[in-house]
């Protein structure tokens, strides 16, 4: 989905709030939220693609203002409610207030019907696909051409795996793009490498 989570290349954001040796956690509840989501994945209550997608399904206003661990917590709670692990009413009673959940999911999709094995040096183009469900194609590479650098082991196909749609695992390709091709006339020179699922690619 073309959600607000898809941040690569968005303009208008200010300086990175960088400090040397910045910590991962700032409060004890963050450690607990992180542990609880990891525990739920370990228990098999949901998979990583479902987890990521539930973050993306958050109300944009909430997503943009929530901290990383609040997004993580919202995904955890949303999935537990959707899968019937714990009813929302019970959680709100326990919390003593309302609990914001992510919006419902749209249908997913299976692998592309024609997928091609690619090799380093192949010139490829990212398909112009846009889906209402989960996908791991950042918007800034859609329709863009690049060069295959390497192939990875096969992974679950996110567009399916986040929605319980049957699919085959497929490799991703490390595709090298030029920043000037991604944002003509308005990017600083760099090579941008993206791990692109086979279903998203065609030969250029």
């Amino acid at each position: 989905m073309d959600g607000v989570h898809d941040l690569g290349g968005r303009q208008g954001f200010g300086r990175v709030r960088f400090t040397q040796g910045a910590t991962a956690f700032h409060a004890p509840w963050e450690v607990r939220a992180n542990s609880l989501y990891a525990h739920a994945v370990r228990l098999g209550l949901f998979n990583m693609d479902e987890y990521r997608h539930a973050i993306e399904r958050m109300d944009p206003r909430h997503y943009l203002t929530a901290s990383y661990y609040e997004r993580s917590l919202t995904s955890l709670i949303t999935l537990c409610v959707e899968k019937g692990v714990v009813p929302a009413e019970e959680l709100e009673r326990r919390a003593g207030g309302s609990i914001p959940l992510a919006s419902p999911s749209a249908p997913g999709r299976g692998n592309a019907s024609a997928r091609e094995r690619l090799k380093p040096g192949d010139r490829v183009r990212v398909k112009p696909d846009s889906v209402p469900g989960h996908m791991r194609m950042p918007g800034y590479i859609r329709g863009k051409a690049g060069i295959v650098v390497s192939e990875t082991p096969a992974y679950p196909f996110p567009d399916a795996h986040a929605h319980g749609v049957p699919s085959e695992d497929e490799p991703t390709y490390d595709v090298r793009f030029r920043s000037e091709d991604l944002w003509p006339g308005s990017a600083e020179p760099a090579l941008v490498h993206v791990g692109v699922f086979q279903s998203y690619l065609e030969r250029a």
Partner: protein
Amino acid sequence: MPDTNRVVQRTASVEARVDAIQSAFDERGLKASEAVEELGHLAQEKWIPENGARVVARAWVDPGFRKRLLADGRAAVAELGLAMPRHHRHLVVLENTPKVQNVICCTLCSCTAFTIIGLPPDWYKDLEYRSRVVRESRTVLREMGLDLPADVEVRVWDTTADTRYMVLPERPAGTGEWTEEKLASIVTRDSLIGVARLEAR
């Protein structure tokens, strides 16, 4: 006229939401409190940048290990007793040179090889880094204190799949006689992400 039947409920604090799901899990026998104890310990004491620092130091002193690390990161870090989660099927190690600076990010969420380079710092997960580093990498790096000469090529790696990345920083000059342990002590998490270069100190 105020609507007296309308119940206005305050949004629960994040702490209260965590308490709610943790206690609901516990009551269902899902052992959340034990998991919080165990995984909290791992996240704070075991999944730390010192792991990546050991990997880097070994690669600096052992050319055979360096070669194996660049060929298959996951297998090579396992030689040092370091594990990665099952879904991280591939670790790609990106070698910096005097003319190449590799930088990692995750524009769609905040993925990292967290068992190796540590859980990501706050700024890595912020909207600013995620939006800007792919498009204006040099400016972002300069703002973060890394002013690269114009002839250094910047390679940005967006973690969009479950392949994970780690930067192999350059070994600083003047460290020829150093032990592996001393070398590891100067490797920072920021250098493993690629937003800093290292100096002997």
